[in-house]
């Protein structure tokens, strides 16, 4: 989380003269990023630990 806190101001500096709506848009984008990060933290614990084996084992027969 701390790493991302630092990234956001840098992203703002990279852009040249943002239009007036930009801070609002960026706040919204940051909020969404935070929400996704919260979600990732939440689902990390339930994700298959051996992804390769899990994917390999998911075999279905064709249907309609």
């Amino acid at each position, binding site marked *: 989380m701390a790493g991302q806190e630092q990234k956001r101001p840098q992203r703002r500096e990279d852009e040249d003269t943002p239009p007036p709506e930009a801070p609002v848009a960026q706040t919204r984008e940051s909020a969404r990023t935070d929400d996704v990060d919260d979600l990732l933290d939440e689902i990390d614990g339930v*994700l298959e630990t051996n992804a390769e084996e899990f994917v390999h084992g998911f075999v279905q*027969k064709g249907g*309609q």
Partner: protein
Amino acid sequence: MTVRRVMGTETEYGVTRPGDPRANPVHLSGQVVRAYATGAGPARALPTGSGWDYADETPLRDARGFEMARALADISQLTDTDDPTTANSVLSNGARLYVDHAHPEYSSPEVVSPRDAVRWDRAGDEVMLQSLATLAAQGEVLRLYKNNVDGKGASYGTHENYLVPRAVPFLTIAAGLLPFFVARQVLVGAGRVGLGQFSERPGFQISQRADYIEAEIGLETTLKRPIVNTRDEPHALGEKYRRLHIIVGDATLCDVGTLLRLGTTSLVLGLIEAGAAPPLELADPVAAIREISHDPGLRHTVELADGRRMTALEILATYRQAVQDHLGDDVDADTREVLDHWDGVAADLATDPTRCVGRVDWVTKLAVLEGYRRRDGLEWGDPRLSAIDIQWSDLDPARGLAARMRASGRLVTVVTPEEVAAAVVDPPVETRAWFRGQCVSRYAGQVRAASWDSVVFEPAPGRRDLRRVQLPEPLRGSRADIGELLDSVGDVDDLLAHLVTGED
């Protein structure tokens, strides 16, 4: 113009026994169906030894006007012979639960609004979860997935059905639907990790199904799958109705995605019936559906027959405008709900698709995948991303990622958990599904078989004296139609006597 018409969904679920990839999927699917019937009991599900009444099924009749010779048919197209090794049940909510090929399938009861389609579609997920719980209590742990691909060449279907008047020529319907179905995926695609039928190239695409679509129009559903399927089994009065069997769509886990999948399609069918479909024709619909699926940036343009090029959003906007032009003054609440979501999603997709997280399946899945790519520096070929794609659609509320997002309020819902729970038991009241479901719950021991347009009674079990009640009109047999009669009759004999004499 209205979204309201007789409609329904069919879901073939992916099925696995963890740690046993060689388990026979037909056997697993049969276990799932039987476990629901035994766990729910005879008043909720006909015993799987009961029959499906195949008398009126004609899977080989083609909407273009000819009937396929049986000898020419692929064996997998024959669904009208009762196979004793597979399980079949009819539920008290009017649905059919059975083994289709190598998947447990839930075919929803007929409903008349997209909102009810969402409700009884999600009831199917609950039916499957109850079955898994019954099996788990017996020590058999299975997993079910509401998706359409295994990423290794296999695809299985999520179908939509719409009742349309027989008078509308099939090729007129197909022509009106083709450009719409090519573009519709940007609203309602489920998203997929991997490009190509065998995921031979890394990447993300909008639709589960697009890479498996190989023809514009055709009868087959298991090979050379078409954008518009010609199967002509009306399950109703054939001279009056056509049942459009749509196989191009993905299984959607966002309520808004399911609502829009059914709702926008019903509106476009309304345009076609009114002779008001926009005059769009694509140069190569099969190529276009893949190109659009492979462009989550939504900038790709596809070529029209007249040489113009349009994006998927532009094609959809053309249909949306035609709907607006023919809407009329009297817009019902079901139609308003669909239009509001259509407009909201289309506007957000055009400006910033990430605003559609929670409403559009592929955008929601992509946000999670991009989150992992950003946080953990994953490339698209990383098996972790493929694993997330699969686990996304696991029905288990603890393991399924979409299910977890819904539970934590991250998915916009159209129906409440209470409405879904009630729909597991109760049939929709506005169609013949109400009669079918009520027969299951009221006369469990005396219903010998059923189908979409019939209920077969065995009034004195064991005597083989069967009585078939035909239901050729999908809107007859509703609660308003027959509820009073059902409440007033004493038993099956009494009911049949009234139905035969027409006293109601």
